[in-house]
């Protein structure tokens, strides 16, 4: 599943991941279009600023890491969530 609303933002982030890692590792980038609006200590702060500047529209909040972590949801993806006891 891709996120077409954020294709430009995701492309921008991948192109600039290295630079962002050098100046703001572990922070959260707020990206709109092909522009990094800023980096923030938390996703919540990045969202607050994004919602203020771009109300009601899509924008990217991206943690600045060497590679994106894979989130674990074992009960969901193994079907255990739906097991009948």
């Amino acid at each position, binding site marked *: 599943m891709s*996120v077409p609303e954020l294709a430009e933002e995701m492309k921008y982030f991948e192109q600039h991941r290295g630079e962002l890692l050098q100046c703001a590792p572990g922070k959260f980038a707020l990206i709109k279009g092909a522009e990094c609006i800023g980096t923030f200590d938390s996703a919540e702060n990045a969202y607050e600023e994004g*919602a203020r500047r771009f109300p*009601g529209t*899509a924008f990217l909040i*991206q943690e600045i890491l060497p590679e994106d972590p894979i989130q674990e*949801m074992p*009960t969901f993806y193994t079907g255990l*969530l*739906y097991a009948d*006891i």
Partner: protein
Amino acid sequence: MPIFESHIQVRVQRPESDGKVLMMPPQHALQHAGPILQVTVSPTKQHIDALISQGQTPPEAIPGFAIIDTGASMTAVDEDVCRRLGLQPTGSQKTAHAGGPDIRACYPIQVSFPGTPLPSFSTPRAMSVNLQFGKTPYILLFGRDLLARIKFVYNGPARRIELAF
């Protein structure tokens, strides 16, 4: 630190017999259903404010069940709920399952707990998945990112869950 205690109630319909709906004995309900809560999911306050300022009517919050999943590293919200609320994505997230890697859209949501003293939570990034195909149609899977904000006790002997915040 205020504490909310929730006794799980489970209704069981037995279509193979008379179709009556029965209450599962409380000593089995928590084990059967797991740590579930009634919640509502809505757009964030910021999104609602944006809609109002644009002259639009915000969508009604969507009620349903959430399950607390200490095995999930991130909170997940049902993708149909996101569509119905008209949410705007804030990113994507890699996840993995038996069929291989997957990438899911993330959305900002607000979660409320009607009828309880628990405060509303909002998160700018909840992962959207299809949670609606099981026997219990959950709308939210409460992961460790939100559990980081509360104290959660699975009190088996008392057959309840306890949340402190």
